[in-house]
């Protein structure tokens, strides 16, 4: 048979035939593999449940329930023996992996102790991030038998009790975060776990310690070095009890970092919250209060007496590993906030 000419009719005919045959065969294969794929998926989930909770005799997938939190859904699978709860397998997740979502199955005993953890799904780097899988390293074993009540689910360099995986800080952090989420929702099913940054209103309330007025309605401007800043005074009766300062540092790693810093009448820091930032997920965003305890070391310090700089800069603040620029900018913002506090005449 000679090659067909490229006429309009021949071209349409060829494309039509090829696409019809292709879609028909794909449909056929899809139908054929649909059931095995479902079975394989269910088997994987059941195996994961079995691996993370003690022996049970019920069917946890039948009693499953879902809780919505942190922008997604967690599925709880209660495991029972002789009608008594022996553990709960929780399908939890985080979107902060090095390459996207990580799904874990976390098994908790009734008192919240971790019995086992299995990775259900991840896209981390093969050879590095995938070491969090239980058959590839002992990383997940260190969680077994620990109760997050006294075992802090953070990496050692972030002030926790978890040994991270070499060269896999982001994946390890994300893993801990997913476990923490499961634990918090297990202990309190209505817990509000959210990684959203606070509004200005909420931040003012959080950073001021002691006030009986409505600081938001009494906001005023303070001018320092020709720049205008917004402050919110806290009062109890006529006595000034503190001041919340809305401050921006341009020295962030990616963009500006906006903080709300609260002082008492002596200029001692009573609280800090991050209002806005654009720093790198997994590194710079550890300045957020919900993500690490970085902010806690500032509370009780007085920038008038204490050197609010990173230790490597001669100060007293522990930085965030991998996010020095961000931590520096944060310190700078806190120091500027104190300047504003001093100029506000609110002592």
């Amino acid at each position, binding site marked *: 048979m000679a090659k067909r000419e490229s*006429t309009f009719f021949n071209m349409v005919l060829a494309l039509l035939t090829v696409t019809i045959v292709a879609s028909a065969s794909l449909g056929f294969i899809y139908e054929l593999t649909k059931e095995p794929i479902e079975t394989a998926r269910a088997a994987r989930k059941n195996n994961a449940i079995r691996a993370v909770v003690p022996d049970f005799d019920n069917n946890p997938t039948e009693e499953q329930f879902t809780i919505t939190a942190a922008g997604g859904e967690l599925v709880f699978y209660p495991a029972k023996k002789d009608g008594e709860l022996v553990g709960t397998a929780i399908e939890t997740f985080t979107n902060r992996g090095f390459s996207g979502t990580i799904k874990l199955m976390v098994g908790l005993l009734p008192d919240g102790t971790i019995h086992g953890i299995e990775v259900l799904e991840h896209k981390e780097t*093969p*050879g590095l991030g995938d070491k969090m899988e239980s058959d590839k390293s002992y990383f997940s074993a260190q969680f077994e038998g620990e109760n997050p009540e006294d075992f802090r689910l953070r990496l050692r360099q972030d002030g926790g009790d978890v040994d991270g995986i070499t060269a896999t800080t982001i994946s390890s952090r994300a893993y801990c975060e997913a476990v923490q989420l499961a634990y918090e929702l297990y202990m309190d099913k209505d817990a509000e776990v959210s990684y959203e940054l606070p509004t200005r209103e909420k931040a003012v309330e959080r950073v001021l310690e002691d006030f009986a007025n409505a600081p938001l309605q009494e906001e005023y401007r303070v001018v320092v070095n020709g720049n205008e800043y917004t402050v919110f005074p806290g009062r109890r009766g006529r006595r000034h009890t503190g001041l919340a300062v809305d401050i921006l540092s341009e020295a962030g790693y990616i963009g500006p970092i906006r903080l709300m810093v609260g002082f008492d009448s002596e200029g001692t820091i009573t609280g800090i919250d991050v209002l806005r930032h654009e720093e790198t997920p997994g590194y710079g965003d550890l300045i957020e209060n919900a993500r690490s305890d970085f902010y806690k070391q500032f509370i009780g310090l007085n920038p008038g007496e204490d050197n609010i700089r990173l230790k490597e800069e001669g100060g007293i603040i522990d930085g965030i590993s991998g996010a020095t620029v961000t931590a520096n900018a944060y310190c700078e913002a806190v120091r500027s906030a104190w300047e504003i506090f001093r100029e506000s005449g609110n002592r």
Partner: protein
Amino acid sequence: MDQAKNFTKGFIRENPVFILMLGLCPALGTTTSAFNGMGMGLATMFVVLMSNIVVSLIKNFVPNKVRIPCYIVIIASFVTIVDLVMAGFMPALHEQLGLFIPLIVVNCFVLGRAEAFASKNTLLSSVIDGTGMGLGFTLALTLLGASREILGSNAIFGLQFIQADGMLVFILAPGAFIALGYLIALANRLNKQ
């Protein structure tokens, strides 16, 4: 054409990765271990073989001007079939390679065989070409995966032979380029002899 030569040309003489430099994206991306490289190679081999067969069969039916879209549809269908069958019947392997299987569609090596060989040759030659080139691709990926695994994780096919961290760079993207460069040099050396 000498069919034996046709079969063996993919191993070294016209090795798709080392000599023709085709399909480098999956070659670099999937070869973090020998097992992954081999799995990806075999999956690609299946797609090359099947698309070679079909393209060779319909080469006279498809007019020249629309041949590329037709080949792509055929290749994409086989890739999806591999993906579905693997997910259904080999879930363990699919877990390892699932991410990379769809990438076979854009592997220019597969389209290259369809365009450069199967569309001009008989069915038998195309089957032999597809198998030979597919094996050559598998060989290249397995070698690359093995060398990266040996250097990067001190293991081969998952069997650890030194209990220590390897040279991490070989697991990461830069290591892929370094290892590939040396293997290309080696293949060219062998080719010259």
